[in-house]
């Protein structure tokens, strides 16, 4: 990116931000363990664990890989559409299983028809 600001303020990152991020990572990890510890089960369990994981990954990508900041905009632009499509994929996955199961349940199979 040529937003010609490389030599202007706003590019140095005070050490404080790293500490804050460490703190957040710690909290998020604690949350994941809590899910385990409290025996949350079923869909909720996986939803929560995945959410925390994604949040952590996001933080790490956003801050610690700051070498990427130059190209991060590009990265977001490239990553976002596939993520949106992935939501679609996930929903369609459950949907196809649902359709399949209802068909098994209610419709008789005609052998030799």
């Amino acid at each position, binding site marked *: 990116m040529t937003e010609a600001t490389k030599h202007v303020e706003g590019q140095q990152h005070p050490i404080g931000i790293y500490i804050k991020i460490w703190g957040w990572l710690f909290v998020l990890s604690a949350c994941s363990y809590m899910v385990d510890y409290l025996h949350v089960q079923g869909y909720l369990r996986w939803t929560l664990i995945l959410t925390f994981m994604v949040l952590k990954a996001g933080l790490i990508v956003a801050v610690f890989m700051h070498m990427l900041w130059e190209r991060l905009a590009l990265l977001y632009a490239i990553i976002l559409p596939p993520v*949106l499509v992935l939501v*679609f994929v996930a*929903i*369609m996955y*459950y*949907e196809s299983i649902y359709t399949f199961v209802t068909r098994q349940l209610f419709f008789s199979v005609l052998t030799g028809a």
Partner: protein
Amino acid sequence: MAEVGAEIERIGPAEVEDVELYHAKSWITKYVFSQDAKVIAIQYSATAIAIGMVALVLSWLMRLQLGFPESFDFIEAQDYYQFITMHGMIMVVYLLTALFLGGFGNYLIPLMVGARDMVFPYVNMLSYWIYLLAVLVLVASFFVPGGPTGAGWTLYPPQAILTGTPGAGAGIVLMLVSLALFIIGFTMGGLNYVTTVLQARTRGMTLMRMPLTVWGIFTATVLALLAFPALFVGAVMMTLDSVLGTSFFMPTIVSQGELLKHDGGSPILFQHLFWFFGHPEVYIVALPAFGIVSDLISVHARRHIFGYRMMVWAIVIIGALSFVVWAHHMYVSGMNPYFGFFFATTTLIIAVPTAIKVYNWTLTLWRANINFTLPMLFALAFIVTFVNGGITGLFLGNVVVDVPLSDTMFVVAHFHMVMGVAPILVIFGAIYHWYPLMTGRMLNEAMGQFHFWVTFLGAYMIFLPIHYLGFLGVPRRYFEMGTTSFIPESAHTLNEFITVVALIVGVAQLVFFYNVVWSMIKGKKAGHNPWKATTLEWQTEEVPPGHGNFGRELPVVYRWAYDYGVPGAEDDFVPQNHPPKRAPARAAE
């Protein structure tokens, strides 16, 4: 701001290579096969409005049938279903999408970001001609045996391609082909809008200095580039189901006593694909309206837009979220019912950034210095109707509430208020606002006032009562109610009233068209920058802007788009290209 002594030297060198500007060689390449974005914009707008008129006339015919069910012999059930289908599809895709992106996008993007033209002018021209072809194919479907499709604008299979539906043969295939063409044409245009905004801005025009109009159109275009493929996939697979007899969406079916050859397909898959496109699509027509209305309010209230950054974020967040709410159109479609939890939550979350936009529009009026010009009136009317339609969206988004309301007239009222009235009001406001730029003359004020009041109050009177029919349980897409015990006689009277108002509002549009033509010849001369706006499109050398937009040199931008009422400045506005500590802005002539 004005006191900041940012010297001219600071301005970086021009990184935008001056593009090889396209030069028309003959009358034909200047006005017909033109590669100038401004001409393409006018071509797009004229085509979109022309086909939109067809949709408007169809809405009268529908209203006549609904208001006076027994009186019109020439409207049969099959005609009615064809009318609603073509009315809905034309209005949403061929009118609003084309007008906002192809029309306003082409005209305003290069001018507002300080570019000479779109970055790929040749592709831009192709985009228009393919769009025109799509419109012609659509029109052709009116004239084939069986007529246009009557499957509803959602085109759900299996119905859309089975014989119980009007236009199930040639009609639906032409519709799908036309949509595919539209998408191809749009992709070409969209590529231009996005790349131009990213790469062809003039010096000093950072992203956050862009007017919200550009943000709205830009984000909407990105959405469209990502959403239209879903419709394309659905259209292609349904065409094959219809023409080759494949079974992508077609399960085993006994249609009117006859076992069909299809086997195993899933109709719900089509619905997912359609709405994965369809929901972003409604924001594709809403976001440009959001952007434009922000600028209208700011200019005519003589105040900066309140919370500019929030406005930009809201646009971007709404855009991203709009991809994860699609199944709120399918709460009662028979999909996996547990999806309801997820989609109800995401749907209602969208209300928050939207609400912020509404607040910021109204807060812009706070402590402003409001001129009640026509664009301002339309902007205020937009807020009223949009909020009204938006909150009824919250009813529908809250999954249980949607159960009784889905597929009733309540839904019809919701989307007309939020899509059929609000953005249309913005279009009118935008035309009153930019007409002086495009023609050099003002539109007539008296005719405009008449047009405004009839359209605003009329449209509100049409669609507010329809919500109550929905509560009552009146279904949408019904040719006639017949005798139904829970519907009182008074509901029919209400329907007659709505029809009469719709016809009046429709006729009032003639005043608008007359005004557009009359003012072109007789209107008051506008001069430079009649509204005293800060944005670049008003700072061109000639009005209307000539070939290449900005005289010999591109403007250089020194400030954001909203410097109205700057303390200490000489005028109550400072154009974006006015360097600090220099002569004050040129006042309007």
